[in-house]
């Protein structure tokens, strides 16, 4: 045997044995290691497999909620007052974008920003960048269809408003959820149902809809149609804002209502806010004062006294009453008038708004009867118009009345009412004594346009006999506008009836030394077949305070303009009212140039224009002069006098 080789054979016995032992120990340790691994793998892959699979599927699946389109709020003619506009936001995963240059160029071409702007974004060392936010769908449509690798988009919604009736409509928050006004109270109708889509990620990062998961399509919200006429609403808002400015008032409210159905055509408040720009909003601006704020109504409340006197006492316009020279003392308290009225009839007491007569008449009526009429006309209870924060006013039950409550209440103190309640009382009178529930939601319709709910006009109570209502409208409230305190509420061509109210505001429980007023005018038209009622309330006017000067002219302007711009109003007024001719007469024509025409020609021309000819001078001659200058605007049927003269032929 070759002994030079250091083979293991040279070392026998214990050393070989020891080697085997040590090798065995190593092998055993490795085996242990291996077994530990196997048991661990067994745990992960066989025993806990459900846990890890669940986790993994959560990781591979992305749940994308697709926001449902929020329903619109429409005006009575279907014009959107609030609508959700979808916009698109593009994002990118710079790591996934293959061709940043081309992508940047594409975006630059579409959105007009520089190519470098997008390149910078696409080269960011991030997994997510916004490339473009809130761009209109029309602009984004092309890029959306391109499916650029690494670029995705998200649909976002934005609420846009026509920006009228801000307090009424209210606001939505960031998540498109209604937080005030109708946006809040009709949240469940407007919001619709969000869609849920489950995507799976493929190994390369592309998303595809998971085949076995439930995909819930988004369901657009319902549209809410209001009774509001956006045009009239706009006019009302403009006019009350103007009034606030003019009289340096602290606020103003106005409501226009269809007396036959109770539909609210317009409801405006000042101060107001911009629905589309909502920073710096105050609660003051957001309050829908027309239904939330209550005042002592003042003289407009005399409708209760007048109704009770007419029905319960059988008083007529000519019933004599005593003005007591402008002042009367009841239970040691003085009731004053703004003028020292003496003996007069009941009509005058109302047209001149005598507090003395109102107080004494109320006492004649008696507390129970007075309360009954106040309640029947809707005071002291919510109208049920269905708006958030509506106040029911404050009408004490008779049992809690003091000695002075009744006389004071006669002319509108010791009672609180919202502008809507006051309007409702007059609308009741206008509607043949039938009190309708005012409402503002005309219809709720699905995204397909199908009507889901429709509000039917609701008769609440017959508050007054129709005859009483007609009589009062004609004899008292028409007279107020015709010859009383409400003369400045007149509308050209439309016979208005109504009542002024100038209420002193209570301050720290006292009216003394405090010169703040609420001036209001509430009226309806046409008085003999009323269609619309409106109220204007100006809060704390500074430069003037009498309702006749502050609120009545606003009423006139608002209603005049409203009728002028609303075809529906015109139709209602002309169709149902004998005043149609009167309205027609309002329309003017331009007097044509008649000079040089022969008499017959002139007569024909005028006839075409709806005018009349009254000739003078030699008949059969030509016109040498006309009584109204050519180009002058005159009412139809106006007579134009002309002077005729025979022409001198030989000249």
């Amino acid at each position, binding site marked *: 045997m070759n002994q030079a080789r250091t083979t293991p054979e040279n070392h026998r016995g214990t050393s070989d044995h020891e080697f085997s032992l040590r*090798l065995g120990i190593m092998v055993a340790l490795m085996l242990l290691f291996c077994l530990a691994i196997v048991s661990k793998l067994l745990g992960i892959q066989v025993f806990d497999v459900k846990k890890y699979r669940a986790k993994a599927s959560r990781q591979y699946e992305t749940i994308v909620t697709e926001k449902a389109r929020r329903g619109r709020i429409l005006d009575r003619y279907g014009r959107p007052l609030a609508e959700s506009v979808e916009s698109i936001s593009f994002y990118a995963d710079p790591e996934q974008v293959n061709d940043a240059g081309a992508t940047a160029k594409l975006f630059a071409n579409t959105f007009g920003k520089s190519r470098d702007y997008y390149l910078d974004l696409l080269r960011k060392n991030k997994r997510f960048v916004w490339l473009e936010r809130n761009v209109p769908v029309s602009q984004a449509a092309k890029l959306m269809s391109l499916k650029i690798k690494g670029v995705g988009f998200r649909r976002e919604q934005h609420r846009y408003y026509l920006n009228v009736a801000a307090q009424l409509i209210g606001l939505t928050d960031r998540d498109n959820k209604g937080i005030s006004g109708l946006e809040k109270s009709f949240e469940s109708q407007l919001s619709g149902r969000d869609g849920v889509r489950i995507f799976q990620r493929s190994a390369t990062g592309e998303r595809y809809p998971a085949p076995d998961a439930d995909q819930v399509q988004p369901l657009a919200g319902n549209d809410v149609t209001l009774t509001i006429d956006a045009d009239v609403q706009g006019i009302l808002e403009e006019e009350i804002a103007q009034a606030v400015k003019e009289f340096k008032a602290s606020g103003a409210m106005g409501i226009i209502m269809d007396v036959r159905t109770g539909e609210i055509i317009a409801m405006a408040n000042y101060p107001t806010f911009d629905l589309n720009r909502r920073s710096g909003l105050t609660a003051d601006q957001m309050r829908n004062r027309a239904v939330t704020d209550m005042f002592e109504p003042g003289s407009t409340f005399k409708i209760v006294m007048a109704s009770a006197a007419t029905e319960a006492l059988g008083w007529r316009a000519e019933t004599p009453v005593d003005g007591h020279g402008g002042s009367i003392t009841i239970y040691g308290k003085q009731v004053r008038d703004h003028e020292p009225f003496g003996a007069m009839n009941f009509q005058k007491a109302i047209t001149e708004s005598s507090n003395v007569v109102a107080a004494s008449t109320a006492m004649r009526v008696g507390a129970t009867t007075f309360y009954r009429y106040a309640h029947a006309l809707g005071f002291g209870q919510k109208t049920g118009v269905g708006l958030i924060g509506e106040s029911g006013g404050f009408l004490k039950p008779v049992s809690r009345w003091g000695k002075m409550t009744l006389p004071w209440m006669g002319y509108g103190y010791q009672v609180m009412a919202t502008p809507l309640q006051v309007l409702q009382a007059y609308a009741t009178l206008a509607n043949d004594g039938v009190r309708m529930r005012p409402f503002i939601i005309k219809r709720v319709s699905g995204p397909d346009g199908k009507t889901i709910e429709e509000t039917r006009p609701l008769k609440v109570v017959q508050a007054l006999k129709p005859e009483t209502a007609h009589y009062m409208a004609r004899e008292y409230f028409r007279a107020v506008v015709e010859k009383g305190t409400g003369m400045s509420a007149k509308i050209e061509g439309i016979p208005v009836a109504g009542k002024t109210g100038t209420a002193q505001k209570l301050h720290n429980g006292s009216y003394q030394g405090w010169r703040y007023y609420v001036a209001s005018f509430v009226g309806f038209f046409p008085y003999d077949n009323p269609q619309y009622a409106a109220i204007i309330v100006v809060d704390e006017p500074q430069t003037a305070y009498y309702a006749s000067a502050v609120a009545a002219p606003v009423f006139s302007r608002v209603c005049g303009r409203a009728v002028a711009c609303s075809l529906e109003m015109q139709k209602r007024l002309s169709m149902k009212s004998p005043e149609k001719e009167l309205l027609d007469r309002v329309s003017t024509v331009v007097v044509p140039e008649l000079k040089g025409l022969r008499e017959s020609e002139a007569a024909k021309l005028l006839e075409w224009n709806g005018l009349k000819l009254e000739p003078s001078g030699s008949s059969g001659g030509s016109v040498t002069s006309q009584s109204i200058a050519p180009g002058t605007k005159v009412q139809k049927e106006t007579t134009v006098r002309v002077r005729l003269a025979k022409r001198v032929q030989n000249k």
Partner: protein
Amino acid sequence: MASLLPSTGRGENIAGKLLLLIVALLMCIGVVVVYSSGAGWAEQKFSDPQYFLWRQLTFAIAGMAVIFVVGAIDYHIFRKISKLFLFVSIGLLAILLLLKLAHVIHGAARWLGFGPLKFQASDLAKYAIIFHFSRLLSEKRAYIKDLHDGYYPMLVLLMIVVALVALEPNFSTASIIAIIGFTLMFIGGIRIKYLLATASLLIPIAAVFAIAAPYRVARLVSFGGGEKELSYQVRQALLGLGNGGLFGLGLGASKQRELYLPLSYNDFVFVIIGEEYGFIGALVILLLFSGLFACGIIIAKHAPDLFGRYVAIGVTFAIVFFAFINIAVACHLMPTTGVALPFISYGGTALLFNSLGIGLLVSISRYRKKVETIERAQALLESKGGSL
């Protein structure tokens, strides 16, 4: 003479062939899995999904070539150059560190070479340690139990290499090299009490070193902490393995590879195997490495000389230990370390180094056969001479 040689001598013949088969299988699996898990990354990084496929295939073929070439040559050549090899390795490690100190290299100073022929200096050092220790252990056979002549020289060499690697910094590889070195010494007959004494001294030092770097502390915390503290990689690795279940999602169906699991073609390639082929697939990989281990041990037992025996054990242990550690990390049995799965993970030069080791095992098993043939011829000659 027959004490270490089985009477038939067939065991190690089979071992050598089986070893080749196992390695070839592992390489094939590697090519497929690296392609599957790396295609997306390759697409992103190199705009060529087949980037990893071709490179891995090329290296696999080169690796086979290395195995055959090294398997054909006499492994004793490594005994002759082992000292030089070790000093060159130490030199290279030192140069790397100096370059790092001179701020020529930023970050970890681990790589040597250029382009596709980059390799980790620690890979070189690992083999240098195996070769030289095998030589020393075989040469010092007679006085191996001696502390001063037997143990200290080797301990010093090992500590130099380990310290240099640890300072790169590459703590995990340094630890593994240390473990390989000590294992070799243990097998080589160094007194166990010396080894234990060293360990009791070294482990506290290693612990201090481990918590010296924040990222290592983070890894340890994430390992020791509850499920919520798992690092992203480990969490994703577990998800991948768990999602694979018993039978796996199928070839190319891994979902973890691109989006969620960084380095899925490299350090965490085992996760992709577990995800695509399930527990069964993972078990097959473990069995292949265990088989490789068994073959290596058989070859070592039947090695013609002590050097061959120690080299065989060292190489086998190094490869299989790396594999087990990689798998243990992937299934959260150990804290995260950057150790590749031999023959399967993407990475050319590491594959070549491992091929070198397998080549050596083949060479050792063949040399044994050669010796046997010569001995048989001699015996025949002697018997003839006797009869004559």
